[in-house]
């Protein structure tokens, strides 16, 4: 009889233990879990469309004459030029606009806008130009035949063609002659939970003009900013639903 009672007690203890653990998970954990999901995915997990990576760029904070994002990009991705600006690879560039009426100068970095409906993907004859589930637009250089239709189709002039034999590529960023390439949103960094090199450089320079984050997560910094502040797309009239949005342009 007493044996029976102790068994029942044991069962009850276990039940209450589990109930308490569940309550703790429900009560405390959501913030923690959401936070981890937003930070980094495990290396063996495929990217999903629950995430959409995006950038918010405040042109007012983009300092005149600062080139840190461009040099950080070149360094991170091993983009070495041949001293020929017409054809050298360029994944991000500084654009300077001057309003002739008011003499106001606007600076902004321009790169692949990571469209939700990318024209470069539409025109690619081989399927090399593709959009990853998390919204990052990439070129699969194993399939790219170097036809450069995507370069013609891109409204932002974001892509470059590699004209010359390359050596000393960065292990994370394979690049080769005869293929098209563009900003990858530093996909190798994003996959391990870091921000793109340009964003990091902009923050290091204490300009803080660029915010990177998950557009699909309403609690991310970028989503909160987008919800509370005005922003715009470049050539929004094309209806491409861009991943990169600008303020004060």
């Amino acid at each position, binding site marked *: 009889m007493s044996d029976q009672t102790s068994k029942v007690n044991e069962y009850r203890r276990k039940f209450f233990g589990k109930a308490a653990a569940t309550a703790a998970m429900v009560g405390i954990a959501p913030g923690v879990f959401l936070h981890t999901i937003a930070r980094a995915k495990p290396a*063996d997990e495929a990217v999903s469309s629950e995430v959409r990576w995006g950038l918010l760029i405040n042109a007012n904070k983009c300092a005149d004459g600062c080139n840190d994002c461009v040099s950080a990009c070149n360094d991170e991705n091993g983009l070495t030029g041949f001293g020929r600006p017409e054809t050298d690879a360029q994944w991000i560039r500084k654009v300077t606009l001057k309003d002739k009426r008011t003499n106001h100068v606007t600076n902004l970095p321009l790169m692949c806008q990571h469209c939700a409906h990318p024209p470069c993907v539409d025109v690619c004859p081989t399927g090399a130009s593709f959009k990853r*589930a998390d919204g990052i637009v990439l070129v699969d250089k*194993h399939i790219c035949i170097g036809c450069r239709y995507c370069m013609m189709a891109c409204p932002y002039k974001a892509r470059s063609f590699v004209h010359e034999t390359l*050596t000393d*590529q960065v*292990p994370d960023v*394979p*690049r080769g002659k005869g*293929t098209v390439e563009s900003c990858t949103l530093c996909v190798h960094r994003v996959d*391990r939970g870091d921000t793109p090199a340009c964003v990091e450089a902009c923050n290091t320079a204490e300009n803080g003009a660029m915010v990177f984050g998950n557009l699909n997560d309403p609690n991310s910094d970028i989503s909160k900013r987008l919800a509370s502040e005005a922003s715009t797309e470049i050539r929004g009239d094309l209806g491409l639903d861009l991943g990169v949005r600008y303020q004060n342009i």
Partner: protein
Amino acid sequence: MSKSTNRQAVTRRSDAGKTKFWYRLAYLLIIIGVMSMTAYAAAPYPDVPKGKGDQCVEDTEFMRANHMELLLHQRDETMHRGIRTKKHSLKNCMECHVVTDESNRPVSAENPKHFCRVCHDYAAVSIDCFECHASKPRAKQSN
């Protein structure tokens, strides 16, 4: 009657000829076998550099035959689905199987001593990977 004996004799003769032929063939095969074995033993086998650690990510024999399949599979998984497990990644191969030169710097695939080059040169199979991919770990930034 005499005809049939004749025929028997002919058959017997040809039987003896056939047996001789088979013996000769067997000798020939044995000789060829022995010669090829000695030739095989004498052929210079590539001196494959040893990687880091005790054991490759898979059995060595398996890797010899199937490394290209693993790399091809991993390449698409990484490119399209963002799966970046280290086990079968080319980057990880290059980190373990790094070969250094006299001044202790990692050599690229342009050097015949490079891990991949040693076997691929021996087997006369060209490698296209390193037209785009780095064939050695990235040098530490020193500035």
